[in-house]
């Protein structure tokens, strides 16, 4: 339990008198789907306007849109990686593995394109640019090195969503993140089993005493992913 991070949220925000109006607002967004309601829902995301961007640095932003950009950055990375795996698979992949990685590539491309569509719709002008992957350290010709990289990306993805979920303020976005993270966990389990059958949730990744998967703070996730991205990413305001 020692790894669990203290909540950044204010408990008072979730007391009962406020609870009903929040739910009503969410309802009107989905039932009415008016631009006005959408803008209202996102009004909590506007506090990143005065974030100063350093030249050459991609600032993911603050509030909910910061978390969405954070997820979008990671999905861009994963989608680019699997696109390479799919397009030029390692010579020692089996045909079943090629088929599965083609499916994983589609899942990650869908995640990427979904975030792009959702951010552009809900927070116009706040989406981060297309990132340039740097996969120089990965030997795409060999199954073992591709699997090792895939394991890194998938476990990191799970830890990223597990650590960032608490920063989301809009329930609908939390549900979306939850719907994606379990698919990332399925990918992680699959690639781990390809490396060593039975390692899908072994003690190196799931705490044997608590039965908990790992969670990482956004800045730590970005630090781990930075070596695979040419642009410098700044996650210091994500969720804030």
């Amino acid at each position, binding site marked *: 339990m020692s790894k669990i991070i203290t909540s950044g949220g204010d408990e008072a925000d979730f007391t009962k008198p406020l609870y009903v109006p929040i739910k009503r607002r969410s309802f009107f967004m989905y039932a009415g789907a008016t631009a006005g309601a959408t803008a209202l829902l996102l009004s909590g995301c506007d506090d990143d306007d005065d974030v100063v961007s350093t030249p050459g640095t991609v600032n993911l932003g603050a509030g909910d849109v910061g978390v969405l950009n954070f997820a979008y950055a990671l999905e861009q990375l994963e989608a680019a990686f699997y696109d390479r795996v799919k397009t030029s698979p390692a010579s020692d992949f089996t045909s079943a593995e090629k088929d599965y990685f083609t499916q994983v590539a589609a899942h990650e491309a869908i995640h990427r394109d979904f975030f792009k569509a959702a951010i552009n719709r809900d927070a116009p002008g706040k989406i981060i640019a297309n990132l340039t992957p740097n996969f120089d350290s990965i030997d795409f010709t060999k199954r073992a090195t591709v699997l090792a990289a895939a394991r890194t990306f998938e476990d990191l993805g799970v830890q990223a969503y597990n650590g960032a979920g608490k920063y989301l303020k809009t329930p609908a976005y939390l549900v979306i993140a939850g719907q994606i993270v*379990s698919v990332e966990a399925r990918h992680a389990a699959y690639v781990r089993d390809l490396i060593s059958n039975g390692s899908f949730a072994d003690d190196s990744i799931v705490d*044997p005493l608590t039965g908990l998967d790992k969670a990482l703070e956004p800045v730590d996730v970005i630090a781990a992913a930075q070596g695979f991205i040419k642009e410098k990413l700044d996650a210091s305001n994500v969720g804030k």
Partner: protein
Amino acid sequence: MNIFRIIEQLSEVDSDVLGRFDSRRAVFKTLGDTAKKGALAAAPVFVASLFQKAYGQTTAPSVIDVLNYALTLELLEEDFYTKMIAAGQVPTGAPAAAIALIKKHESAHVTLLTNTVKALNGTPVTGKKFDPAKFPADYTTQLAFAQALEDTGVRAYKGQAGNLMGKTAGSTNLLQVALQIHSVEARHAAHIRTMRAQAPWIPAADSNLPAPLGPVYTGAIPESNVTQSGVNLTSQLGATYSANDAAASFDEILTMAEVLDASRAGGLVV
């Protein structure tokens, strides 16, 4: 106004919208009757009263309720794997090691959730068991039940995340803990699926399988769903994706009422 569509979309935001109504059947029966009578003029009034009933008072489950619901599922899973190991039909080697690892995690989840409920001065549920009368005699069917339990668990945790937003026990963020259990259940589900020679993720066609599996993948939002947050993943992303890839790339929620329905986990627990 398509009330079914509204309820479907609303359930994306509020996972327990259906639980807020008296019962799903009652709601849909009343809607059907209203339509039959052609009383369209009365429909807005009916819908308004429906949502007044659902949202007029705060009926969201308490944190203790959510944790006890999760604990019920973990107790069910723990007991199922205890029975599976005791039945002695799991092949030695990799299969036995995998089942033992999963059982270890479910026991850890039971302990963690029990202690958390106690720490919040609640009363943890106990004694929830897998119905012995439903326990399969053969290993192949045991694995199918394991898949049903794991994929249900994944959907169940997802359905409660919103009720844990901002909730803490001391310095522990309960939402994050739930997410950390949730992704482990997904790892289990993926491995069990591969033990059954299935894809680790959920293809669109799974909801057509016979029980115990098929009902697990149905619901107000079935696993075959390809629309997320109003975006159709097959036609509105600027690229072409198959319905199967679109469905598999997002897991869906189940509400508390759906999980506890007799066709799913509710039919397996005693």
